[in-house]
């Protein structure tokens, strides 16, 4: 498997930030009351992941081991603050919803984790790809989580998506009329419940795949 494919697979599924690494739980649980919020948070985090990855990778030969963590923190908080200001200025509506959580991106361990374990050892291009894939994987996970909670919790999907993406995306907004919603799922405990069941479902899929491949392997050994 080529390295590019490896990086893509890692970010999206094998080593997914939320479902496999279980990192960044604070934004994951706090912002996934709806699919739109999950998408917004995921995109903002992706921008930070890519920028911080490229910066760390560019300076990887300059940064001395003793002060590397401090420098990573400096770079990340700078990027986060810039994203925060940019969103406040040009995506103001979304910023009102996510504003509280954007500064928290800086404590998302996934970003520090990628800087330390990947970007500090690779060329900027690869670091950017890794940041992008990790970010997209994170975004997808948040969207699924937010979608499940929103659908069960209030019977809508991508409510207010047009606020984030522009009027053209209003078709995304679904609403199930007559459904009252299980309020619990929108509230914080619902985040834990939904995440738990989604991780369990993923583990079951992995276990099944493993059993199948082992079964196939055994059959092949038996055949020869």
């Amino acid at each position, binding site marked *: 498997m080529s390295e590019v494919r490896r990086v893509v697979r890692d970010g999206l599924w094998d080593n997914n930030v939320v479902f496999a690494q279980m990192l960044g739980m604070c934004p994951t649980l706090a912002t996934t009351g709806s699919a739109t919020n999950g998408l917004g948070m995921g995109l903002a985090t992706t921008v930070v992941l890519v920028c911080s990855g490229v910066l760390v990778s560019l300076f990887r030969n*300059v940064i001395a081991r003793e002060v590397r963590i*401090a*420098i990573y923190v*400096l*770079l990340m*908080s700078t990027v986060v603050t*810039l994203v925060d*200001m*940019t969103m406040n200025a040009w995506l*103001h509506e979304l910023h009102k919803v996510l504003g509280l959580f954007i500064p928290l991106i800086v404590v998302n361990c996934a970003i520090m984790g990628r800087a330390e374990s990947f970007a500090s050892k690779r060329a900027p291009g690869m670091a950017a790809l890794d940041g992008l894939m990790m970010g997209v994987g994170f975004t997808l996970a948040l969207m699924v989580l937010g979608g499940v909670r929103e659908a069960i919790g209030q019977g809508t999907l991508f409510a207010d998506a047009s606020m984030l993406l522009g009027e053209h995306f209003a078709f995304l907004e679904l609403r199930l009329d007559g459904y009252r919603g299980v309020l619990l799922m929108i509230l914080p405990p619902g985040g834990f419940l939904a995440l738990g069941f989604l991780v369990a479902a993923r583990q079951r899929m992995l276990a099944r795949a493993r059993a199948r491949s082992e079964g196939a392997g055994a059959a092949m050994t038996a055949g020869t």
Partner: protein
Amino acid sequence: MSSTLAAGLRRRPGLLLGAFALGCSAMLGAGDLATREEIRQRQADDLRHALDQTLSAVPHDNNPAEDTIAVEDAGRSVTVYRARMAAEVNGVAFNWVSEAGYGGPITLTVGIGRDGRIASVRVLSHSETPGLGDKIDVRKSDWIRGFDGRGLDTGTRWGVRKDGGEFDQFAGATITPRAVVGAVHASLKFFAAHREHLLAAPAGAAAAAAQPGSPT
């Protein structure tokens, strides 16, 4: 960056850290410069939008967000935004905090017309029980619109039905609507008590009076 400089910095971590801190500060400064005006504009828009909603029933041609006056009442200072039509104050809007509801005080934005009737009431923030008390939010129910057009002189019985008033309580929640009705009533009394002062001040004086009140 020359490799000798890089190698030199590597050997002096303190200097390296300082260099990065300087670089990051420069980026933040540039970012702030680029976005400051836009953010200020957006926040002003937010306030203006909220006031326009509250005062939509009051015809006005000024920007109420820029025409404020601070009024002392019973120990609290209330910042009042005024809507004018041809320099005449046509209505006012202000935030009013209720007595405790079920989950704590409820903050309302109240708009009152020159005639002392409610132009609109909206809930700014509350911590009432989701699904029970949060029907005071206009996004959940139209209940809060029931105040529109009412005043101290309209013969309204100010209270929820359970207390002999004419406003509905919610199924399973009486305290929340009771607190909101009480707060709206109190805000009308506040307006009545300061009516002269609120409506009379001329535009020029208002601009001067706005100075101490505006930063809040």
